């Protein structure tokens, strides 16, 4: 049945006309040049990887292809003829389908219905279920899924299968160019194997796949060619055979950056926070990391490595299923965030809007939330004078730009809002401070300031654990850097680690002889 979608097996040789050619693409957002003169050429029947660090311009390129954004300059050709993509429907008509990271499906409808929603095959008044079913079964077969999945309710399916359903949805539209935006981020290793099998089958049937991933080791299993982006520009396109993980990392980073860093020494040798053998079924396992007072430790991992789940466990949002958490020599089991807080842990949540902000409430409200026991008389009456003082102090200390502490946080910029949420963690000086993605969606200026605050806190003796997927940030703020990969802690780097070393380690360095720096054992 595989052959029914496309019977021809086009040659993937270098002489074949390009399936997609984007040339001289530029796009500005206000003052920011998101993309500068980028070129991307994808040949038919190949997997073309697009890699780059966060903010390198990958997602903007994808949005332009999907018709979500229109480029300021540049030309797009599909199969040799000029194409104009002005909206999502133009992209679909050209056979360009995008599968985003999070499946966008209707949980209570069946797989078949999800695939055809809004474009049902009709027979008279009713939906022609049999015809839809036949097409869906064919595509599912291509994806290696049994026919019974077609009638399953989406909410009953595991997330990996849901993602395959999204791919199926794209394929039923007769996609010739399939964009997979970090498809592996939410999948387990076994699920990734299935995904790759699917991708290979699609390519064999003539589809061109644009594959975006942070996990560089994957490229060597699936990609034919790699285009590297850096600072909004395409650095170049390379056949996969010419590359190594380390070489890709170097191209992405653009040489070795050295940054001046103050060398700190921990004030005590007993760790303020120590995780040993910590694990949670289905999320991560055997995590070992220790943070001493006065020290900043980075926990660096790519999206989906399990790094964010570790933070949730330390703070009592989830329960660990194995291993121990030790605070200043005392073993603890945080039951919930309130309990973790009483134990002396403060945590800055990763997702500011969903987990951090009370958006239509004031700055003072946002800071005092969670510290009402301290900022009240008899634990009942809010001490509004104390609340105001604390809020004003922190606004000054963190340089929050606002006319008054009464402003609603929802109207503030990302950087200022993040400072307010961070301020909440500093009301009572915490012994242990966990910062999850402390500068996500924050402008450069505020980012600098937040990094400065982290350094100050460490200088005051706080044990700081920075959990992040932003590598330059991890290198910049951390005294020691622990890399999380595949749900567990792997290697540890000292203060003189380079981006290339760490990226290669985190992205799956399969060839240790390639490493120039010795890896330290933790």
């Amino acid at each position, binding site marked *: 049945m595989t052959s029914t979608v496309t019977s021809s097996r086009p040659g993937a040789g270098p002489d074949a006309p390009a399936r997609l050619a984007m040339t001289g693409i530029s796009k500005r957002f206000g003052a920011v040049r998101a993309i500068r003169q980028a070129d991307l050429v994808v040949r038919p029947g190949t997997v073309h990887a697009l890699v780059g660090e966060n903010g390198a311009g990958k997602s903007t390129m994808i949005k332009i292809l999907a018709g979500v954004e229109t480029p300021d300059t540049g030309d797009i050709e599909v199969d040799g003829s000029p194409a104009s993509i002005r909206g999502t429907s133009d992209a679909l008509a050209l056979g360009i389908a995008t599968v985003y990271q999070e499946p966008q499906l209707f949980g209570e409808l069946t797989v078949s219905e999800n695939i055809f929603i809004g474009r049902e095959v009709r027979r008279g008044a009713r939906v022609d279920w049999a015809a839809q079913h036949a097409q869906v079964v064919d595509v599912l077969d291509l994806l290696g899924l049994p026919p019974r999945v077609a009638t399953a309710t989406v909410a*009953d399916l595991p997330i990996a299968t849901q993602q395959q359903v999204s791919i199926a949805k794209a394929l039923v539209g007769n996609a010739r160019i399939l964009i997979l935006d970090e498809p592996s981020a939410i999948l387990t290793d076994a699920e990734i194997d299935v995904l790759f099998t699917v991708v290979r089958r699609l390519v064999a049937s003539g589809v061109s796949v644009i594959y975006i991933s942070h996990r560089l080791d994957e490229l060597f299993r699936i990609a034919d060619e790699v285009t590297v982006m850096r600072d909004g520009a395409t650095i170049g396109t390379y056949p996969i055979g010419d590359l190594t993980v380390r070489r890709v990392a170097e191209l992405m980073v653009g040489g070795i950056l050295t940054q001046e860093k103050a060398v700190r020494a921990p004030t005590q040798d007993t760790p303020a926070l120590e995780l040993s053998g910590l694990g949670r079924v289905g999320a991560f396992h055997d995590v070992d990391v220790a943070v001493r007072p006065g020290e900043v430790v980075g926990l660096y991992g790519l999206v989906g490595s399990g790094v964010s789940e570790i933070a949730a466990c330390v703070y009592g949002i989830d329960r660990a299923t194995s291993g121990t958490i030790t605070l200043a020599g005392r073993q603890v089991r945080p039951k919930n965030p309130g309990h973790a807080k009483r134990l002396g842990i403060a945590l800055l949540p990763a997702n500011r809007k969903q987990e951090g902000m009370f958006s239509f409430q004031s700055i003072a409200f946002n800071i005092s939330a969670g510290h009402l026991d301290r900022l009240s008389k008899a634990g009942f009456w809010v001490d509004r004078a104390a609340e105001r003082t604390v809020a004003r102090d922190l606004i000054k200390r963190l340089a929050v730009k606002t006319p008054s502490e009464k402003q609603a946080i929802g109207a503030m910029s990302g950087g200022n809002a993040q400072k307010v949420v961070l301020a909440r963690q500093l009301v009572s000086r915490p012994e242990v401070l966990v910062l999850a993605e402390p500068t996500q969606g924050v402008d450069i200026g505020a980012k600098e300031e937040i990094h400065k605050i982290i350094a100050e806190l460490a200088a005051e003796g706080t044990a700081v654990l920075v959990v992040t997927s932003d590598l330059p940030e991890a290198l910049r703020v951390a005294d020691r850097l622990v890399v999380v990969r595949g749900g567990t802690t792997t290697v540890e780097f000292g203060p003189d680690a380079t981006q290339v070393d760490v990226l290669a380690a985190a992205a799956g360095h399969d060839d240790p002889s390639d490493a120039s720096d010795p890896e330290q054992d933790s």
Partner: protein
Amino acid sequence: MTTTAPPTSPRPTRRARVLPPPIAGQELVLVAVIALMWVVLALTTPAFASAGSIQPLLVATAPIALAGIGMTIVIITGGIDVSVGGMMMVCAVVTAKALVAFELALPLALGLSVAVGGLLGLVNGLLIAYGRVHAIIITFGTMNVFLFVGLQIFASRTVNGIPSTLQFFGRGVAGRTLGVPHAFVLTLLIAAIAWWYLRHTAGGRHFYAIGGDAQAARLAGIDVRGRILAAYVVTGLLVGLASCFLIAQGTSSLDQSVGNGKELAVIAAVVIGGTSIMGGRGSVLGTVLGALLVQTVTSGVTQLGWPSQLSDLFVGIFIIVAVGADLLRERARRRRLRAKGAAA
């Protein structure tokens, strides 16, 4: 592959596989509960098993089930309509007065009531689809307005001397064929049409998609506003028909309490029938069964000689049990998926 043996012919098996089973767990449970109650009531009270007891039960189920079909669609889209009681009052009083004044024929009376209901539903639908205000607030408002309109038409007097035009849908002998009440048969017929529409047409499935995620539905090219408008208009039309049943079931007079509190009874039937108040999931079959269950409780409590108001207590308990079971199922589903994810 043989095509001779009908039970194993490829056609039926293929058809059976293209869609999920037509009857879900909750509906089977409801059927079982209703059957159990009927058996117990038949054994404990001598009068229950007689036609004289079952027939009024079915007749009384009809208006709630009918309005419930519309309410089910509205709730599937993620909305709600608490103005149903007010709509019933307006439809009933307009129709009753017209019957008295013009001695309308049956089809005209039905048409009038349905048209009035559709008009009121249109008001709700327009305000909700285009006003971008939550349905519960809009329908709280229109409920008061509809009550005002209804009471104005009543003009502080009970409508008396209503001709027996509508007796075809009433409790009496004229309202039955072979012992089966017409009102109930018509309700079942409409429920079947609604069931088919919701299950087999694109328009029907779009109601579910909108309730699941309205934003995603819009991106998928679904006419969200048009569908929402349609849901409230259909509710109005069905309430109009249900109002005729209410007139037919009464005596020759209609007082101002008509429709009183019916919105909550209708919502109760829908919820017991397994439709999720969060939207995106529900069935009209469940709603009809839910209405039947509520009427069985009401009838059973009377038959047992208990105070009739005690039936509301059981309705409350049934709501908790029905929705509670649904919550547990959801929780089990999430746990199962997590376990599956961990095993992989």
